[in-house]
């Protein structure tokens, strides 16, 4: 019994070291924390009314009154960025979690039920794979009107089958390992094997899929808003702010577009970095 702590401690330390990661991970973590905080609190702490024109002169440069300057009709850019934060960060998060969970359910079901479900799943995957996510999202807008709800559902549908297939393959590989056979020989039930051994083994794949899914969903939804099919004025999210500020770039006022674009990039990059890191961490500790 006395050996147990000495075995456990180094592995815990190692886990903590890998979880903490290098400077890149720390920067990404800090950036993401700031973005999440602004999405949660942003609309409350915005210094000005985001829809109120002429709280300053048009195209004021950054100053103490207006940290990110003002837009073409004198609205405060920082306030608009903060007000748009929940609408920019939350939908991709919901899409990523939704697609990953549903994909996992379908994938595990297919692996459990075997061939017949497998066959149908591959057919569905083939068809959905043939429709690019952005096309499906625009199609959804044509059907149900502008806004981010319909495109979000479309993106869940278009990314679900890939996750399902990946989970199915990963589950199959795991189930073909000798230890599963050994457990079955010992009389361990199927449900127990799946719950206690397969589920943890799928965790890294799910984590990786969720973060990749978030990055793609964020870019696709920002693209939908950029195209003018998402959030409608006077409301704004970061995608529509990029489009909104574009005309001003040629007049020499790139501030609004650049600020919104920087936030999209920062969010996608930090989630990707943290996701890659978390995946390696989960791979290292799942055994």
């Amino acid at each position, binding site marked *: 019994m006395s050996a147990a702590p000495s075995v456990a401690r180094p592995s815990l330390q190692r886990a903590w070291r890998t979880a903490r990661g290098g400077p890149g991970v720390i920067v990404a973590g800090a950036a993401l924390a700031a973005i999440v905080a602004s999405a949660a609190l942003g609309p409350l702490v915005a210094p000005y009314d985001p829809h109120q024109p002429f709280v300053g002169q048009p195209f004021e440069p950054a100053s103490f009154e207006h940290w990110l300057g003002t837009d073409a009709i004198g609205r405060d850019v920082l306030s608009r960025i903060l007000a748009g934060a929940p609408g920019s960060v939350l939908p991709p998060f919901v899409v990523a979690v939704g697609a990953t969970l549903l994909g996992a359910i379908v994938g595990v079901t297919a692996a459990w039920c075997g061939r017949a479900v497998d066959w149908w799943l591959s057919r569905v995957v*083939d*068809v959905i794979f*043939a*429709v*690019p996510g*952005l*096309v499906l999202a*625009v*199609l959804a*807008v*044509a*059907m*149900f*009107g*502008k806004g981010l709800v319909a495109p979000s559902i479309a993106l869940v549908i278009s990314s679900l089958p890939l996750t399902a297939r990946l989970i199915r393959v990963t589950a199959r590989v795991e189930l073909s390992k000798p230890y599963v056979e050994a457990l079955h020989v010992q009389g361990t039930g199927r449900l127990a094997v799946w719950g206690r051994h397969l589920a943890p083994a799928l965790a890294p794949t799910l984590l990786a899929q969720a973060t990749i899914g978030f*990055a793609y969903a964020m*870019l696709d939804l*920002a*693209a939908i808003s*950029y*195209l*003018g*099919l998402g959030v409608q004025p006077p409301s704004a999210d970061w*995608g529509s702010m*990029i*489009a909104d*500020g*574009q005309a001003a*770039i*040629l007049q*020499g006022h*790139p501030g609004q*577009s*650049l600020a919104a*674009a920087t936030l*999209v*990039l920062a969010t*996608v*990059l930090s989630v*990707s970095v943290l996701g890659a890191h978390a995946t390696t961490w989960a791979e290292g500790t799942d055994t």
Partner: protein
Amino acid sequence: MLRRVLAQLGGLLSTLVIASAVIFGALVLTPGDPVSAIIGGVQPTPELIAQVRADHHLDAPVWERYLQWVGGILSGDLGQSMVYKTSISALLAPRIAVTATLVAYAATIVALVGIGSGILASRGGPWDQAVLVSTTVGLAMPTFVVAILLVWVFARLLGWFPVLGVGDGGWDTLRHLTLPAVSLAIIYIAYVSRITRGSLVAQQTREHVETARVRGIPSARIFRAHVLRNASPQILAVSGTTFASMFATAAIAEQAFGLGGVGALFTEAASRKDIPVVQVIALLMVSIFVAANALVDIIAALIDPRSDRTHA
């Protein structure tokens, strides 16, 4: 080989049939009355409504309308736009030329820079690091972000490129399409570069390559005959998928640079609920995607005869 091509074509056709049924079916389920969309602002009289319903075959069962729609497309009749009141083929023809040029331009850039930088990175050393860092950033750079950066730097600050329209043909068009093509290409360059590097590195460490190196065969020849050739099916597959999805993403570059392409029409039609146009363009994009992937598979089989045997 022939069997493989036939199998490919079969798969292609069945996917297209299902996809077209889904695209058509989905838009039949669209909330809202198509008649009011067609009539527009005019006060509808019962006779007008009946007329419109008859013109657009709205009273026939769904499957019959689907068959009519597919039959029309196969015989070259794409139907009428509800918003423009003209034939969709007339709307599409000039726009397809714009989008095809844009995508061809961007695809050339992706092939040259993406595969080139992937090869460079596979040699290791500082280049590998440089490519790794720039592709990490590149993978997070969507078309609309690159577009505003390019507009700001190259159009506003430096004034090197025009930013609106497609120019008046030839050299001028090429100049007008440079910024849109680059903005479309960046994220795909990063992707193709990563895959190229990965598959080349995987090949370089294989036994027969080591053996060839030990035997003193010139490294340029090893690279060409053993590394690049074995890695090429994978590189090709990724490039093909990339090329196909560019047709969809082109909508964003077209929007950013005011180009009247297929994607811009698609966006506009979706926002104005011009359902017949949306249906045709969605089907067009799906067809291009499916056809490009099938073509890539066939070319891959030509390069690597083994993949023929294992799949057939």
